[in-house]
């Protein structure tokens, strides 16, 4: 095996191996566990950096192993997979730091970090999967190794949340399996390719292909929480904050959204999808989700629940961008893969820190919290403004491309959806900011925890939200940087549209 064709596998293994080793570690071996975690996270980043460099020089990275007769196990790096890899790797690193701080002194940490690493390995696998079968394997693996994280607390409520999660995702997985098998049956051993892989068989199979597409959407719609398949997400909020953060920003929800992107662009091809007429239903479904998610968010007092419904709404921006036929909409959707991740993880880090430091879990308890935890709340504020789409945050750039993309796709009404969504986002985020910054504190905090030190909270709980908060601004402020995210996403879109 050469370097070029082992690198994708190595990227998966850099978290898989530490994860498995961690299972066998005693609870008390904090040092070894932390070293393993951090080593894996940093090694992964280095490998991805190497791969980006190679891709810019037109090197092909592909791990291909024979798997089933005619179907290989393929991990391949392309511009789109790199985007998801780098997002996951960076956010995994900060979330690991956060999780170490968050779970200090709590039980079952080996189990937690073991599955945590497996979870990221699966995400990497999903990102790099070169064909449907490989994608399916990692997608199901992700479902399974996330479950122990969701039920980590182990109480009745957690178990109930976990059960709901499993039922939803396993049914979604079933739908995916069906779609994959059907696809292989009519198209043969195809692999993901820029611009689509099924051009040759479209004629004569339009009906089945349309059904298959909707099966895919239904399957991915569970994880990416498209209404009415979103029911598990708010209930999975019983998970510890770092899990919710990772779940919402990178792993589960994002995997679903990534699946929609992958299948639409690299399996069907955007032209074929447009030709089949499946994009308009997707556009309507995602628009509905955007509105319904936001409306439901308004009624939540629990911080994490409100954030969960906000995720329901925001993740659909990605699929909406996919559904808007035209390069601008695609840019908006694919960029939001990254933007939503960075902004939402900031919000969840903040929510977790409020809980760990002050015992604050409800919005009604947040009065005056800005004075007690200014840096955390500042990061939270950036995330919230980003969700509304206020410039110069990353959220504005997304909205810009989705808006111009809507016109390009001749669907002007989508601008109305974006506007309504911004209004609703403002409706449920600004009151939080108002309470936090402008209202005086109401009595004692529910359960204040003194971490000592000179910061408002333990540094491991403070650094991650500040870092991602800063990123949320930089991604918007320097959007047009010659080597930035926008450049990379343009590369992806140019290839998908074969321009």
């Amino acid at each position, binding site marked *: 095996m050469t370097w070029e064709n082992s690198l994708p596998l190595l990227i998966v293994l850099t978290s*898989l191996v530490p994860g*498995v080793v961690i*299972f*066998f570690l005693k609870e008390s071996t904090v040092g070894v566990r932390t070293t393993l975690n951090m080593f894996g996270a940093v090694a992964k980043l280095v490998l991805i950096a190497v791969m980006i460099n190679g891709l810019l020089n037109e090197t092909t990275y592909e791990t291909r*192993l*024979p*798997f089933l007769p005619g179907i290989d*196990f393929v991990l391949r790096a392309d511009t789109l997979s790199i985007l998801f890899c780098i997002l996951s790797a960076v956010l995994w690193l900060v979330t690991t730091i956060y999780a170490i701080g968050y779970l200090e002194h709590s039980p*079952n940490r*080996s*189990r937690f970090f*073991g*599955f945590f690493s*497996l979870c990221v390995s699966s995400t990497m696998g999903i990102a790099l999967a070169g064909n449907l079968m490989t994608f399916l394997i990692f997608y199901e693996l992700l479902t*399974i*190794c996330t*479950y*122990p994280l969701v*039920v980590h607390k*182990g109480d009745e409520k957690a*178990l109930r949340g*976990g*059960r709901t999660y*499993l039922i939803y995702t396993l049914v979604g997985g079933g739908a995916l399996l069906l779609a994959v098998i059907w696809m292989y049956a009519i198209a043969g051993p195809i692999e993901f390719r820029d611009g689509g892989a099924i051009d040759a068989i479209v004629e004569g199979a339009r009906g089945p292909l349309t059904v298959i597409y909707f099966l895919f959407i239904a399957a991915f719609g569970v994880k990416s929480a498209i209404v009415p398949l979103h029911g598990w997400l708010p209930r999975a909020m019983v998970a510890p904050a770092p899990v919710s953060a990772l779940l919402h920003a990178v792993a589960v929800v994002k995997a679903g959204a990534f699946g929609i992107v992958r299948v639409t662009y690299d399996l069907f091809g955007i032209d074929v999808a447009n030709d089949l007429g499946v994009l308009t239903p997707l556009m309507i479904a995602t628009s509905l989700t955007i509105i319904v998610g936001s*409306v*439901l968010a308004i*009624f939540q007092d629990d911080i994490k629940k409100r954030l969960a419904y906000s995720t329901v709404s925001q993740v659909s921006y990605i699929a909406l961008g996919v559904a808007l036929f035209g390069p601008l909409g695609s840019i908006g959707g694919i960029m939001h893969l990254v933007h939503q991740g960075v902004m939402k993880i900031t919000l969840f880090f903040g929510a977790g820190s409020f809980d760990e430091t002050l015992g604050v879990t409800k919005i009604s308890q947040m009065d005056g919290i800005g004075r007690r935890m200014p840096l955390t709340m500042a990061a939270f504020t950036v995330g919230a*403004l980003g969700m*509304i*789409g*206020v*410039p*110069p945050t990353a959220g*504005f*750039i997304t*909205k*810009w491309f989705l*808006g*111009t993309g*809507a*016109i*390009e796709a001749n669907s*002007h009404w989508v*601008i*109305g959806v*974006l*506007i309504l969504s*911004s*209004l609703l986002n*403002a409706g449920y985020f*600004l009151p939080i900011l108002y309470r936090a910054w*402008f209202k005086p504190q109401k009595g004692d905090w529910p359960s204040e925890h003194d971490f000592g030190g000179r910061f408002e909270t333990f540094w491991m709980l403070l650094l991650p939200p500040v870092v991602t908060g800063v990123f949320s601004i930089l991604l*918007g*402020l*320097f*959007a*047009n*940087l*010659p080597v*930035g995210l926008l450049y990379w996403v343009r590369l992806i879109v140019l290839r998908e549209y074969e321009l």
Partner: protein
Amino acid sequence: MTVEFTLLTLTWALPLVLGLIQIAYRKQFIPFGALGAVPGLLAALLVPEGSALDYSSLLLGTIFQFDFTARMFLLFTALLWLVAGLFAAVYLRQDGRRGRFFAFFLMAMAGNFGLILSGDMASFYTFFALMSFASYALIVHTGQSEAFYAGRIYMVLVIVGEVLLFGGLVLIAAATGSTSFAVIATQTLDPLPLLMIFASFGIKAGVVALHTWLPLAHPAAPIPASAVLSGAMIKAGVIGWMRFMGDAGPDWGQFILALGVLTAFFGALMGVSQVNPKTVLAYSSISQMGFIMVGVGAWFTTGRADDAALIAIVLYALHHALAKGALFLGVAFAGSGRIVTAALLLPALALAGLPFTSGAVAKAALKSVTDALPNGLGSALSLPLSLAAVGTTLLMARYLWLIYHNPAAQKKHPPLMWGLWAALLAAVALSMFVLPEAAKGLEKSLEGDKPWAATWPILLGAGLAAVASRVGGQLKLPLVKPGDMLSVYNLFARAGVALVLAVVRGLSDAQNAALRALSHADVAPLRAALGRVEFWVRSDYVVAGSLLLAITLGVLLMTLLTR
């Protein structure tokens, strides 16, 4: 690094950085942070028109253009922010929260300066948002419940304005293929984006029916903040119209013109019975923005070609900024004796347009523009504009009366406060004589019957005010609550919210019923099995993990072997 680049960059960056430093160290206070406005003032005086900057990496490719409009707007904006900021440092000297105040004051300043310089829609939008959000903190600064109420109304309208602006700029960008104002200026845009843009900036500028936040918010802020809100920030709406609306054409021009006249009357009518001098001034700002709208309307009517209209707009904006700033700062000295009321006569009469004041020059410039309008518009506008000046006089009389009769016993004010106010008064008195653009206007304002045309509305207004002060004693004031139409809007808003609530409650009831029905279904065996798996995974995760590992490795091994 040229001088232009440095000055123009510092114009927005210095206040922003100072603001961020101040917010990081809220407990300490940067005494003369308002000096952050100095680069802006220097830029307005020194940087030649036509300079342009390109920060291509920022946002969607940011450009700055320093044209005549930008230079003139920056001139009065920077001057007013500088004076008000220094004034605030003294005025709030005993305020425990002045650190926070100045942090947001500086950020709003950065936003206001930045949007004036912006040459593209995305950066304008960004600076506009910065200014709008930062000024919330200025409005609610006193922490009183009225301030928070005003802040809430303000925030709702800010958000509505933001999303309208977003919709408008996306539509414009898609239609013109550009975000640059230089390109947009020559384009004819669709009615929908034009309407969105007009309404969005109309909220900031206080156009009638979109103005309801203004009489609440401008007075709620501490005096120096009111001065910049009502003097400088309100004009962001005007420059917004001029930048975004492209070549809007005569129809839009006349629409804006008509709405301007209406706004001028409406502001005066609603303001004249108010009991708080700052509320009177806020309504006066609405009324004065009506005059500026007449200029903007005329400018669009002539296809943006009429430089005289452009000059009239900026002269009026400059005149109003300085005069309104002086009037607001004057509120701080209310009850300090007759000399204050006498000094306030200068900006008050300037606003009414007395000959030899800045107001006369601005109004003359405006009048020469409207007179030249086609289709008899000029003569049709003549009387309404004079009558609106009667309204201005009444407002000013009301304001002076309230200041004069202010009962509050006053402590001594530091000399620096007096000095700054005096400086601003001097600027009001002299601005029209030192600006080359205004010199011609001054001559024009003294031609023919113009002095009389400017004076009779003031005499009439003063007479009416004298009568009103005798007759109006029995009336319960104010006749109209500040915010006037707001109560109607609130009614609609409440009805809307109730409707949404009802729908959501109904849906969630239905969902709960469905879930209850489902949970009664017989799934006990499945649940038991799941429970066992759950227990096993939790208690014996090492086994589970190993198994997972074994499966993974097995699959890998198999694939390797079968090669």
